Structure formats: C-alpha cells, structure tokens
C-alpha cells in the first residue's frame, strides 16, 4: 500500500514538474509548437470456461470486462516527450464470487485502475534516447507499482536500432483466502509481496527496401507470493482442501523475432514468432500472421491468426489428483498443457487531410486515426473469449 502511494505521488510530481517545463519551454520558443497527441481506446471482453482455479479446476470462469484507456503524448521542448497513461476497467466474474460461497452467480464486481508516465529525451547528435517511467495500479486485492529506465541507440542511416529497458514491479497482495480456509491458509502464504524484474533487449534492422525485422529477448525474474491466495487445490483420496502453493521464485525467458514485409503495392505481411522457457517447467511457442490489405493510402483491413502451444508446469494437476506428498501444487489451467487459436479482423483508418482549423492557422485540431478490431480466442481446455476494441487518435 505504501509503495503504491509513494509511486502515485511520484507520478503526479513528474507530471507537475514536466508540465511546468512544457509551459516554460513553449513560452520561450518561437518554433512552431509540436502537437499534443491523444489516444482514446475502449475494449469489451467476454469469457467462458469451466476450469476455474478458484474452485480447484472445476466451475465456471464466466467473466466480462470493460476497459477505457487514455494516453496523452505531450512534447517537451524540441527533443523530449511525456506520455501519460490512464486506464480503468470494470469487471464481473463468476469465479472469484466463489471465494466466499460455493454457489453463487456472476456478480462479483471489481475495478482495476492504473496510471503511468513515461518521459523520453532524444539526443539527436548522439543518435540515442533515454527514458524513465513509473506506474501505479490498484484493484481490490492487489496493489502494484513500477519504475523503469530505457535506452535506445540507432545508426546514422537509421537502418539499425538497439534498445534496452529495465523495469521493476513492486506488488502487494491483500491476502484473501477461501472462506473455509481462513485463517489456517495464512501458513501457506510465504509473504504478501511479489517482485518482478524485467530486462527487455531488442535489435531492429531494415533488411531491404521492403523488409524489416527485429529480434528480442526479455528475461524476467520474479520473487515472493507467486501463487494466488484464493485458488483452491483438492487432493486425491481425501477431502482436504488447500490454497495453491508455488515456489517463491521464477525465471522466465521469452525470445523471438518479428518480420514485416511490403509485397507489391497494397499488401503488407506481418509475422511474429516467439519461443518461451521458464523454470516452472513450461516450454511454449507462439506464432502469428497478419496480412494487411491497403485499400487506399488511408484505409487498411487486416485479418489475423495467432497460435500458441505450451507444456504444463510440473506443479499442475487437475481437480482431486494432487498428492499430499507434493511440495507445490496448482489446478490453474492457465499453467497446464494447452494450445490456443486466435482469429480476428481489424480495420485502420488514418485520414491524411481531415483537419479542422481553429483559432489560428498554426493551431490545428486533427483526427489522426480510427481503429476497430474484433478477435475470438479458443483454448484446448474449453476456455474461450471474444473482445472488441476501438481506438481514436487526435492531435491538438
């Protein structure tokens, strides 16, 4: 709680200081003002499934979620920019409703709120940029804050880009146990803290006049309470119930490549492939393909398909199959051997000339882009979800 309050104060302090700098710099400079860009995004999500970990790997996973995100990109002097992100989502879930009672309905409501800032300063003479970021988020049982730093370097011909980033998350659980396990489950919770340290390295290269690609590797180290305190586990040949128990550290290693190529004059092929390994025993592979059809210079339509396959963690077993002799156990199907298919369709409209002059010629308000995207996901254990997302971007 203290760390979130501290980070929240830090976020507002950064906004205040940089906001003052923006006003000062814009008053000092005679150069044309760079516009402030604003992105508004909306998402609706609906999920169905019958392997809720709250009820030990059985039971409904019905869920709806509505999310709004606003991102403001503010130019700071001639080489800096400040991005402020605010998001809020409202969800109802049938599974967490069963923390307290076994039979209920999809009535459990919660709000997840998040705010973040990112400040980036370019040094054109050195072909590099530095960035700092901070964020804070809250929901009823989980508080999170983060601090990050980033570095980008590019070649003078801008054919090669290297970026490195480091981010640390400081999360705190408000430990809520299943009703029938209070307060004895406290002994199975090693701590209420979770820490995540993420190193993000990527190298991007323009390969030909029509192809560019990137390679990335993103090692993650997590410590603390990695299990979820209200996930139940039922054991074989006994009526005993316990909360999920997982090791207190985890190392993840995702890495992959992206390739985009322009074919002819109106087709772009976007490819993505990722390999994943972690010390919980999960090995995974994910690939996606997205052909973009450019119907005009401002209108694009793109279907997409994504395939994911993973092995199970060594700590997973279904409902009532775990043995009491095991040190760690979970019945969360998110950690089981699964494969998932996602299909969808998106449309992107980026008008070039829709600009409305207001007040003066130098101050223009413009719609930069509109986007709509629908996707449907099917997982091999029966879980499925669909969502629709929309986005509007303006310059002021």
């Amino acid at each position: 709680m203290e760390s979130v309050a501290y980070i929240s104060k830090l976020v507002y302090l950064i906004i205040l200081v940089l906001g003052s700098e923006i006003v000062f710099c814009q008053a000092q400079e005679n150069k044309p003002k760079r516009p402030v860009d604003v992105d508004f995004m909306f998402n609706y999500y609906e999920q169905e499934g019958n392997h809720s970990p709250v009820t030990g790997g059985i039971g409904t996973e019905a869920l709806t979620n509505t999310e709004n995100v606003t991102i403001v990109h503010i130019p700071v002097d001639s080489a800096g920019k400040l991005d402020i992100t605010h998001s809020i989502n409202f969800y109802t879930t049938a599974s967490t409703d069963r923390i307290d009672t076994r039979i209920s309905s999809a009535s459990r409501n919660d709000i997840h709120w998040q705010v973040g800032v990112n400040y980036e300063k370019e040094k054109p003479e050195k072909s590099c940029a530095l960035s700092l970021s901070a964020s804070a988020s809250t929901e009823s049982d989980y508080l999170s804050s983060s601090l990050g730093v980033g570095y980008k370097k590019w070649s003078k011909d801008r054919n090669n880009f290297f970026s490195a980033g480091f981010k640390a998350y400081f999360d705190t659980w408000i430990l809520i146990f299943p009703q029938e396990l209070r307060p004895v489950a406290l002994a199975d919770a090693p701590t209420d803290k979770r820490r995540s340290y993420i190193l993000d390295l990527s190298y991007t290269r323009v390969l030909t006049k029509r192809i560019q690609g990137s390679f990335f590797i993103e090692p993650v180290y997590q410590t603390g309470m990695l299990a979820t305190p209200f996930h139940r586990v039922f054991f074989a040949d006994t009526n005993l119930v316990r909360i999920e128990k997982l090791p207190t550290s985890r190392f993840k290693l995702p890495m992959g490549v992206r390739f985009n190529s322009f074919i002819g004059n109106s087709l772009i092929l976007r490819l993505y492939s990722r390999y994943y390994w972690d010390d919980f025993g999960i090995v995974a592979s994910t690939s996606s393909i997205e052909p973009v059809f450019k119907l005009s210079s401002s209108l694009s339509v793109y279907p997409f398909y994504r395939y994911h396959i993973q092995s199970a963690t060594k700590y997973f077993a279904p409902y009532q199959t775990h043995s009491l002799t095991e040190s760690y156990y979970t019945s969360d199907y998110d950690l089981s051997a699964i494969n998932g298919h996602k299909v969808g369709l998106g449309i992107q409209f980026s008008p070039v000339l829709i600009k409305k002059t207001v007040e003066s010629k130098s101050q223009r308000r413009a719609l930069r882009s509109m986007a709509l995207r629908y996707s449907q996901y099917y997982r091999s254990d029966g879980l499925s979800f669909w969502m629709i997302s929309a986005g509007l971007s303006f310059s002021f």
Partner: protein
Amino acid sequence: MKIVKQVLLVITMSSLLFSACTAVKPYEKAFINDEEMGLNPRKEEIFEINSETYREGASGGMGSKAGGGCGCY
C-alpha cells in the same frame, strides 16, 4: 544446458538472418516508413496481449507487462 543451447541457436540464426542485408538509403524507405510496417504491436492490441498474458502461463515478449496486476480473475 539444453536451454542454453536453444538460446544460442536462436541468437545465431537471427544473427545470420539479420546480417544478410544491404544498406537502405533514406530516400528508398517509402515502403519501410509506411505506418503499417511498424514492428511494435498495434495500440489496440494491448487488450489482447493483457488477456493472453493472464490466460497463458507463458507470458512475456509481447511488449506487455510481465508483472504488475495479478490477473487473478
């Protein structure tokens, strides 16, 4: 040891692939600079990335959060 070999294999193959290219001049980047050619995920994709992060145990490497927010619903 197996994972070290796999990591080295991916890095070596990527290096070979990325070295097989020519320098492209700024005036030859009309296709490369197209908005749809960006290598980052689309802005609206962030919602899907978050859901996949929660619903698949193998998270990370999608430009999304790999920590922060429990996704425990």
